């Protein structure tokens, strides 16, 4: 999955990647050339006392070092460009893909994990690409180049390479292998201790109310002990790493001097070559070690790659129609019709909606009532085509919504969702979400109807430079700095600004008190002349005046008619009314 992801996104950067490879080759060659020059200084300059030669070769070394730094920096430039560019492209791919997801796909993943995938996971992959470009290209070149150079200096000592490299690989590899699962475990341990702490702080009242302090402390202690145990084990392995590597490297150095000494004594090799060989051997060992460490990054990046790949390979179920049908954008209401609509989540045992049929006439109000989990929200979400029905059809003015372009549906249907969500920005920015061209007057009119004029007028946020009032006052992300009732009113106003032909209110009055609820609905009745209104509500008083009420029970319509008719005909409706009658009507 990771490879597919990288292969697919690296294509535009192939020239860059080639450049990185070439530049790193040059860098490595320069690096490898230096010990050989140094050997020359010793053998031809120092040994013979030729100071001119020393100066001359010294100058060459300086130039080589210059070349090395220039190629290295240029390679970093290309590497950063490729990896960060890929990160950007992958983020964009994920975003555009998720953009086309239906509510169902959103629900399957959940927003939090999608956010993590689009941000943190991409970061992982992008860092892996960067590291790979910076080191992974260099490591093999360095190892092979080093081996070639070392053998060239003295083939008789080359066996030292074949002994020391595997020895180092075995030691480092063993430690890395031992450490990796421990890292994973430590992360899990940290997560679990943090979640215990989080619960203690977030649920402090519950903990204290039930006198569960000791219980919580015991939980924390066990998490703490586990974490400490893992940390200690990681630490103990880690402190072996440094000394073990030191011993191997110095063993190799001593071996070169000992066996090399014999070869020098036998006149098979020069002293300078010996020092060069020693340096090459160390360079090879360093490269091997770095490569082994780099492998530690892979497991995480592979997981991230898989998580990203999953998102990218999810095909959105809502396809735009090939030949969209046009629909009047303005002028009166539109008829909403459900024809034997059934909706089931894939894999679920029973459907959420089961054979629902009804028609909401233009200019009329249709109300939907039913207890929690009866499918009300799912039903209304089919109208703006947030889902597609599993079977049956949802029609707007006689045209199936599947034949309408997204833009058309958006102009015709205005949904006020159950969860009043606001975007960060000013109030005006939020209200214009449905119609970016609306002027301030339109916004105020919408607020008037939604009973939001007063609090918006009085509202001020920020201090000093950033101080703002009224429409320009700011809303924090999700609308957390606005009370529940105000948020609902702003959401209603937002839809009013868009002026759709069909209004769908999904329990949009729940946070309003009865008086405000009534005023808002009264205002709506006056201002949405001719538009179709569909209201989902809990409160009987909200829907009694509707032209048609549908009673939903476990996904099926079990009653329909006006309030008065249903009081006679529907048992479920009467039960709902009974549960509220004491609450609202009698004294």
């Amino acid at each position, binding site marked *: 999955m990771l490879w597919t992801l990288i292969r697919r996104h690296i294509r535009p950067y192939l020239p860059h990647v080639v450049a990185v490879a070439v530049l790193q080759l040059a860098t490595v060659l320069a690096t490898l050339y230096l010990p050989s020059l140094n050997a020359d200084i010793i053998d031809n300059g*120092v040994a013979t006392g030729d100071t001119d030669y*020393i100066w001359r070769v*010294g100058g060459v070394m300086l130039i080589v070092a210059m070349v090395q*730094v220039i190629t*290295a920096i240029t390679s*970093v430039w290309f590497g*950063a460009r490729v990896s960060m560019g890929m990160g*950007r492209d992958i*983020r964009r791919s994920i975003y555009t893909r998720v*953009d086309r997801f239906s509510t169902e796909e959103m629900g399957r993943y959940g927003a939090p994990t999608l*956010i*993590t995938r689009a*941000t943190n996971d991409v970061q992982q992959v992008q*860092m892996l690409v960067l590291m790979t470009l910076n080191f992974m290209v260099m490591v093999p070149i360095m190892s092979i180049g080093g081996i070639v150079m070392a053998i060239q200096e003295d083939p008789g000592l080359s066996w030292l390479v074949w002994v020391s490299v595997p020895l180092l690989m075995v030691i480092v590899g063993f430690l890395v292998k031992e450490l990796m699962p421990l*890292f994973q475990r*430590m*992360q899990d341990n*940290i997560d679990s201790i*943090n979640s215990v702490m989080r619960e*203690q*702080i977030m649920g402090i*009242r519950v903990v*204290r*109310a*039930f*006198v569960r302090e000791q219980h*919580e402390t015991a939980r*924390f202690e066990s998490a703490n002990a586990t974490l400490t145990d893992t940390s200690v084990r990681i*630490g103990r392995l*880690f*402190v072996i790493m*440094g000394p073990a590597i*030191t*011993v191997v*490297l*110095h063993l*190799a*150095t*001593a071996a070169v*001097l000992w066996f*090399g000494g014999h070869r*020098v004594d036998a006149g098979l090799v020069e*002293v300078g070559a010996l020092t060069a060989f020693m340096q090459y051997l160390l360079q090879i060992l360093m490269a091997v070690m*770095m490569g082994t460490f780099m492998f*530690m990054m892979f497991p995480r990046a592979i997981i991230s790659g898989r998580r990203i790949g999953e998102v990218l390979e999810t095909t959105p179920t809502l396809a735009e129609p090939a030949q969209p049908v046009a629909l009047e954008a303005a002028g009166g209401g539109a008829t909403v019709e459900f024809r034997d609509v059934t909706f089931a989540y894939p894999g679920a045992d029973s459907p959420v909606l089961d054979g629902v049929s009804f028609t909401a006439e233009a200019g009329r109000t249709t109300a939907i009532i039913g207890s929690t*989990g009866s499918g009300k929200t799912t039903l209304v979400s089919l109208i703006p085509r947030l889902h597609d029905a599993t079977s049956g059809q949802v029609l707007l003015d006689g045209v199936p919504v599947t034949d309408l372009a997204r833009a058309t*549906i958006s102009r015709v249907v205005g949904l006020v969702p159950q969860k009043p*969500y606001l975007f960060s920005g000013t109030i005006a920015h939020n209200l214009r979400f449905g119609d970016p061209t609306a002027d301030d007057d339109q916004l105020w009119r919408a607020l008037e109807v939604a009973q939001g004029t007063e609090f918006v007028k009085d509202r001020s946020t920020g201090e000093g430079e950033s101080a703002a009032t009224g429409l320009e006052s700011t809303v924090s*992300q999700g609308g957390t700095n606005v009370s529940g*009732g105000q948020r609902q009113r702003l959401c209603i106003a937002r839809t009013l600004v*868009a002026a759709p032909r069909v209004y769908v209110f999904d329990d949009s009055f729940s946070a309003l*008190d009865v008086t405000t609820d*009534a005023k808002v609905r*009264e205002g709506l009745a006056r201002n949405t002349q001719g538009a179709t209104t569909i209201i989902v509500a809990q409160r009987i008083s909200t829907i009694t005046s509707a032209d048609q009420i549908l009673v939903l029970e476990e996904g099926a319509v079990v009653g329909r008619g006006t309030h008065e008719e249903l009081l006679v005909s529907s048992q479920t409706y009467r039960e709902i009314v009974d*549960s*509220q009658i*004491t609450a609202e*009507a*009698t*004294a």
Partner: protein
Amino acid sequence: MNAKRKSAAEKTGAKRSNAKKSGAEKSGAKKSGAPAAELADLTESEILEMQDSMTSEWGESAPRKAKAFWPSALRLAGTFRDHKLGLAVVLGFGLISTVLTVWAPSILGDAMDVIFDGFLSGEGVAFDVLGRLLLIVLGMYLVAALFDWLQGRLLNDVVMKIVYVLREKIETKVNRLPLSYFDTRQRGDLLSRTTNDVDNVQSALQQAFASLVYAVLTIVGITIMMFWLSWQLALIALIALPISAVVIGVIGAKSQKLFTAQWRNTGRLNGHVEESFTGHDLVTVFDRQDSMREQFDTRNEELWEASFKAQFYSGMIMPIMQWVTYLGYVGIAVVGGLRIAAGQMSLGQVTAFIQYSREFNSPLGEVAGMANMLISGVASAERIFELLDAEEQEADGEITAGAANTDGETDREGRGERIERAEFTGPTRGRIEFDHVAFSYTPETSLISDLSLVAEPGQTIAIVGPTGAGKTTLVNLIMRFYEIDGGQIRLDGVDIRALDRGAVRSRVGMVLQDAVLFGGTIRENIRYGRLEATDEEVAAAATATFVDRFVHTLPDGYDTLIEDEGANVSAGERQLITIARAFLADPALLILDEATSSVDTRTEVLVQEAMAALRSDRTSFVIAHRLSTIRDADVILVMEHGDIVEQGSHDALLEAEGAYHRLYWSQFAAGTDPDADDAVVEESMTVTGAIPEVAATRDGAGAAPAETGELPAAGA
């Protein structure tokens, strides 16, 4: 030949990647190498904004600079107090290891000379001397490695012990802090102190502390060795020092700025992604995908630019530092060669010198990196110490009257008097008395000034009133979540301050306004009410509170895991679970604070019947906004501005036409004709049916005492 340097560098390199590993999951920003100092360019509000806007995965609050570095650093160092011996051994071993490691290359140089001399003189290499020297060197390295390993292991164990104790202290502290502490602070900030800051301190102690000490020791040792070998070459090697300093200073500072920008842009992009994914339905419904994507593209592009630059600049440092090393290498090779040729130095000395000069630069870079880590660790430690220093609630049995607000020095009667400790014997009857109770959250604004009430055993007390009237406060005082400033609250005639908090709370069952559930299964959450309850008892409580009904529609029934984002369990269902939890606890006193606000009315009625059965023989306090819950109460308390303005039964209060009457018509039955008496179902519904019209004409009467949208109902 210069193996120790490299091994040391790799060791820390490896440790850093360890830090990366553990830090990576939480912090994207820090991982890219942006330590605390880089946040200097961000304003405080920006940092807060980021903390707010980021999901938990990104939520690592960046440790800022310590307010008082040295006091906090000393205090952090003080945590080693209990491990003096261990620390002394660590330092001793470390010193031995460093001395040997620094010394060894020069002996290796001697070995080199043996070969070189043998080669030059043509007398052949003196292998007995060479062998002896090499064995000495190997021995030195082996001993150094052994001591390095031992001290590392010992330090690791000591640090882990310290961090373990630190975490323990924090947890204990959390349990001892008064609730007011949690009210007045951002939970997110508190969380990051107890989690991220501790992690940060751990890595600072574990990695930075040790490395910093040895890096400094090594630098000192190498400097001495270099000057001992040849002061001329030492000076050449030291030339590299200012160059490195300039590189780190100029490019380092630049890249830090760029990392700050990268972090800022990351935050902004994440914010946008979070918004458009969370508000996905709305974006779809309003067909705003295109404009949202444009915004995304802009921010994505900005992030790309910032991160590319940051990576480039920071990536440049390594090659340049390497170049500086090579520069020194070339200089020493040339000058050294000249000096050998002139007979002033031996080849072995020059090779040893080359190794030293290389080893010199690497701990320098290390010192810079580790210092940053340590500074950030101290800042985190400071934040933890602040938490540990916070004033605790008074221990049980050491309560003094009215001591909760020591700064609000009024001379209330009995202030400062020690309250005698008492204990319950026998069963709790559940009589609650408030006797001239005064309470305020802050000394400046008093909330409850003089409140008295009596709840007889078995009575149901309903509390109504606008937001901010002190309803929740009142029940919190019974739980002793806060200490009162004056007067007394008595449970069965005993001052609750004379009792252990646990003794009071274990007799009271409370269902809170926001349904807090813990990670774990539904069964575990219900069992939280009584840990020793059997599965059958849990199921019985669940059945009584209608949890059982919806549990069976969940894939794993009672073993369904409660998710943090709560996608699988709705708000109403969560409330039912918390009710089941209190039900299982079977307390003598019951407090319901808006317990059914998110439950649909039909279910609510059923739950209420179950609760009524539970309540029948115990005192209960009920805060609710739905009339059905309030109407049947024995006593209704109407609260306004922290005082009880009216009390009595529903009918009596309506008759009185006072505050309750007003509240009742504005909140519960807006628009309904107040004169319509017990109407039969059909008739009254006709009246309700007419609400819109009537409401429109009843504007004035309908106005609630408080901003209507803010009423408790709105919180649901």
